[in-house]
C-alpha cells in the first residue's frame, strides 16, 4: 500500500514526510526526519522519554501515529533552545546537574516547559506530580525537581 503523505509543522517549520500507518510519531521524528533528540525508553507510554507537544498538548510520541499528525503543530526538544542560547530550563538542568545519562532529559524538559506554561509558580509537589509521567533511572529526581523550581523562579522574574 502507498505510504501516507503527511504535512505538519515541527518547531515552527513546515515539514512533509511519508510514513506507513503503523509508524509512530516517535519513529517518524527519529528515523524519517533525523530529529533524534526525542528518545525512546519503553515504547508503551510508561517512561515519557518520547514526550513532545502536539497542538500544545503534552503527549508520548510513541503513542501517536505519524499519520495522525496531518496538519498539526509539533514541538520537540530540538526547538527548545536557539543555537547556543539555551532555554532557562536547559540552563538550570546543567547548573543543578539534573542529568546523568541524559536519556530522560529531553522528555523531562518538554514536560517541564509544558507544566510551567500552565502553572508558572508550581509547588515542589506540583512539579513532582507534573513530571510523574517521566521516569529517570539515574538522578533520583531530586536535582530535576530543584532545577525546574529554580528555572520557574527565574522565568517568573524575566
Amino acid at each position, binding site marked *: *500500500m502507498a505510504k*501516507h503523505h503527511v504535512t505538519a509543522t515541527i518547531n515552527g517549520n513546515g515539514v512533509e514526510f511519508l510514513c*506507513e*500507518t*503503523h509508524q*509512530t510519531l516517535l519513529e517518524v521524528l527519529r528515523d524519517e526526519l533525523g530529529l533524534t533528540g526525542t528518545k525512546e525508553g519503553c*515504547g*508503551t*507510554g*510508561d517512561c*515519557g522519554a518520547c*514526550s513532545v507537544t*502536539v497542538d500544545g*498538548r*503534552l*503527549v*508520548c510520541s*510513541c*503513542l*501517536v*501515529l505519524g*499519520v*495522525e499528525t*496531518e496538519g498539526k503543530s509539533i514541538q520537540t526538544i530540538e526547538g527548545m533552545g536557539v543555537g547556543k542560547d539555551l532555554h532557562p530550563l536547559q540552563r538550570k538542568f546543567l547548573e543543578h546537574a539534573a542529568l546523568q545519562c541524559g536519556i530522560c532529559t529531553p522528555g523531562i524538559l518538554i*514536560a517541564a516547559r*509544558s*507544566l510551567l506554561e500552565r502553572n508558572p509558580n508550581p509547588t515542589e509537589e506540583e512539579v513532582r*506530580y*507534573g513530571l*510523574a*509521567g*517521566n521516569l529517570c533511572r539515574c538522578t533520583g529526581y531530586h536535582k530535576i525537581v530543584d532545577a525546574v523550581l529554580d528555572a520557574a523562579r527565574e522565568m517568573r522574574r524575566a
Partner: protein
Amino acid sequence: MSEMRYEAPKTLAAAVALLSGAKGQASVLAGGTDLLIQMRAGRVEPELLVDIKGIPEMTSIVAENGGFRFGAAVTCMELIEHEAFAKAWPGVTDGVKLIGSIQVKGRATVGGNLCNASPAADSVPALITAGAAVSIVGPNGRREARVEDIATEPGKISLAKGEIVVSFLLPRRPPHSGDAYLRFTPRTEMDIAVVGAGVNLTLDEKGVCSQARVSLGAVAERALLVSEAAAALIGTKVDAAALKRLAAAASAACRPIDDKRGTKEYRIKVAGVMARRAAEIALARSVSSFAPTHSLRKTARTQDSI
C-alpha cells in the same frame, strides 16, 4: 502490518460505513493509548483503523437538559480542564484524573477507557455511579445504553460490528449531590487499580440520603453496579452504621481474581474500605452545597477535623 489502512472520516455516517464495510478487523482509533500498545504486541491486527477524532460530535463538551454531554473522543485532559464539568461531577473527574500520566491523558479518551473493557478502567465506576447514558451509532441507526451495560468481560464489549460509542450524557444533578471515586494502588501515580470504588449520593434538605449509586472496579470481570451497597445508604444520614453496612455490601458483591496486584481476600476487604472512604468524600461534597450557616455543614466540618 504494512497492509493496515488508516481513515479519518469527518462524519459519523462515514465512520460507520467504513467500520461496517471492512472485510477484515476494523478498529476505532481514539487516543490510541490502549490500541497502539495492543497492536505493537500483536494482540490485535486490524486491517483498518478509523480515527474518530475528526468528528465534531465526538470531540465536544456541551450542556444538555441541565446536564452535560461529552463526546467519546474528548481527551481526559480536556474534560479535567473543563471547569463547569469538574465542578458538577468531581467524582467522575477523580476517575478521569487517575488515567495515566499527563502525557497519557493528553491522548486518552473516556470512550476508549470504556471500550477497551478493562475491569480496572478508572473512569468507568465513576460514570456508572453518575448514571451516565451512552449514545451509540451503528449501521442500524442510533441507540442508547447505560455505561454498566457496555463492557461484558475483559476486552469484550456489547457493541455490534460497525457500532461506535459517540457520547456520554450525564444527567442534571439534584441539589446537595456529591460523587467521588477512589482507587487503591501501590503507587500514587501511574498504576493499575487493585480496587476502584465510586459513590454518588444525594441528600434531602434534612441531610437524609435520598438517592445513591455505588460501583466497584477491578473486583470482577467488569465494573459492577452494586445496588445493595447503595441501599445501605438510602434513607440514612450516611452515619457510621450506614457506612459499615455499605462496606459489607461492597465486599459481598466482589468476585475478584488473584493476581500479582492482590489476592481475592485482599481485594474483597479493600473494596469495602474504598467504598466507605469514597462515600465519606461524596458525603462531604454534597454537604458542602448547603448554605455555610446550615447545621449539616457545620457538623460535617467538625467531623472532618477529628
